[in-house]
């Protein structure tokens, strides 16, 4: 090979649902420091694209925040956040943490929850939280995980204006690279460096966000 490929790249990526092709083939690569917003109407293939990305990049320390969050309702907020680092500890330490959390971990997770505005919920089971609180727990989990790239599907869909902005700021401050599926075009244009519009499973728009306005993206919908 003559030119070195960027690490985070997809080549002729596809996704099939049974017999039906829902995505691709498409090519996409991320430069270091890039924050990519995935936009497009629901069913266009944003979630499928994120799933394909995670499939390709999970060995390279990608962190995932799925749309349905994947929290465990019966476990406390603390444990759900702690799950972000399960792979960094031996199994016996994880078992111990389930019964008796260590002080250092509590302090670290407590700081994250404070930053996200839910410090009092540390020991509440996730099943008892509101939708917005649950989304902040999922955000705390990926913040705690500290991977090399963040793949998030609608990370702030259940949060209102100022809260949504503060959560996005926190996510982008922790991750130097990210792919965020977003339905709020203003947020996407404001916070991300690049916008990729998906239509019928293929890339319809791909441009730096400073060159785009919301009006440019309307044809996608």
């Amino acid at each position, binding site marked *: 090979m003559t030119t070195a490929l960027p690490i985070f790249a997809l080549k002729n990526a596809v996704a099939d649902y049974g017999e039906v092709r829902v995505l691709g083939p498409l090519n996409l690569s991320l430069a270091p420091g890039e924050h990519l917003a995935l936009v497009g109407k629901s069913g266009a293939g944003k979630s499928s694209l994120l*799933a394909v990305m*995670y*499939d390709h990049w*999970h060995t390279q320390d990608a*962190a*995932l925040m*799925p749309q*349905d969050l*994947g929290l*465990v*309702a*019966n*476990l*406390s907020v*603390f*444990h759900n956040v702690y*799950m972000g680092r*399960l*792979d960094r500890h031996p*199994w016996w330490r*994880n*078992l111990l943490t*389930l019964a*008796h*959390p260590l002080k250092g971990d509590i302090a670290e997770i407590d700081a994250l929850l404070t930053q996200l505005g839910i410090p009092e919920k540390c*020991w509440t*089971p996730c099943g008892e939280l509101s939708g917005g609180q649950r989304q902040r727990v999922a955000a705390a989990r990926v913040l705690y995980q500290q991977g090399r790239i963040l793949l998030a599907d609608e990370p702030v869909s259940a949060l209102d204006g100022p809260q949504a902005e503060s959560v996005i700021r926190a996510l982008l401050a922790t991750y130097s690279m990210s792919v965020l599926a977003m339905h709020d075009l203003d947020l996407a244009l404001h916070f991300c460096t690049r916008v990729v519009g998906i239509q019928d499973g293929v890339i319809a728009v791909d441009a730096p966000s400073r060159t785009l306005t919301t009006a440019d993206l309307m044809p996608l919908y």
Partner: protein
Amino acid sequence: MPLTPTARVSLSLIALALVCLSLGDFEISTHAPWQALGRLFMGLVQPDLSRVDFLGEAILRTLAFAFVGVGLGAAAGFLLALAFQHLWVRTFCAFIRAIHELFWALIFLQSFGLHPITGVLAIAIPYAGIFAKVYAEILDETDPEPARTLPHRAGRFSALLYSRISQAWPHLASYTSYRLECGLRSSAVIGFVGMPTLGFHLAGAFAQGHYNTVGALLILFYLLIGTLRYWVRPRLLPLYLIVAPFCLGTGLPIMWSNVSRFFTHDIIPAPLRQGEGIEGLLPWLGELMLNQALPGIWNTLLLTQIALALTGILAMALFPLISRHFTGKLSGTCGHVILVVMRATPEYLLAFILLQLWGPSMLPAVVALALHNGGIIAHLVGRRSNTIQLRQDAPKGINRYAYEIAPRVYGPFMGLLFYRWEIIMRETAILGILGIATLGFYVDSAIQEIRFDRAMLLILITALLNIGVDILARRLRAHLRLRHSINRKHC
């Protein structure tokens, strides 16, 4: 970290079991327990299938008693279910199902003798009580709207048939077929007290040391239960029900004088029978309570709590065997076979075998109860876990178990465990017949001494104990918010 109510209840149950463990007797008293186990294993590997008459009769009678007993129980239970809104019907049903089929068999053996009706009633009566409760719950679950829209003058029966029963039919049928499997186990077990079913032949083969015959009987029994869904077809069912009564065998003729003497004379407390009145009754009652009922209750509770905790631990440890989140195709199939064998073996049969191998103590009873009930709960929890969708980046191995799956299935698991609490206690009491000093032991001894009045009173006490545990379990389920929708009350 504050403990959740579920964690508190779980830890209390384990602590209580540990206390009970220190109070019980768990010695292996036979000389060569492992040698006997080895012989049994060899019997299973090399079953003696040559004695066709013998095996054929054992299987035929087991099937016949199961079909007739469950059939009658289902019919009676259905009628009772239609009147389930009356408190006295509910109380009556709770009472007849709190008495184990083996106790019913012991009662009828004293009156009807070794006549087929003894075995049939022993199964039909407690099953009617259970059917009534579950059928009523299923009928309650149906949508009341169709009944409201029927023509005003439609008869009660037609209305019921077209609205409630037609909606509930699939659930009624699937529950009934599940109970048929239980009926096969009950039918096998009543052989241990003399009915001509599998248990009778198994006990005989054990006594003579014919381990190869024991192996053949056990394997046939597993095959019978494992293939149930292939040969029990809705269309064939009427045929089976018609033929079964003719396959019960003849037994011994009923002595009607015995029957009437049993119910009008033998079961009347001795002091009353001898005209001593209340003054005589109180010391009689006191002596019975102190020397038999209380020790029996104590041992029954001890054993139940240990078995309950061990059942729970086993179920949580074994459910991954059939969970797709932990097994592949091949290992999942192996897991299924292991759990099927565990739950297909009736506790009584398992306890009987282990008692032969290890000698009398609480150990065989606890192991038998935990294996059977643990297998059932593990199967249900495993199936439940298969409905869980994990996120794409879910951890693997022990982290997946501890953080993703176990917390999600723990609530349903506790619900199932509490549901089996009453069943475990009923079985614990009955295992006394094998010589472990629970309530069944004192019932059996009283019968051996031809003191039926005492036996009846002890059976009554056992029934009340079961009802008490059932109420406690329901309270705990409500406390932990584990209530299933099927327990919905009448409005």
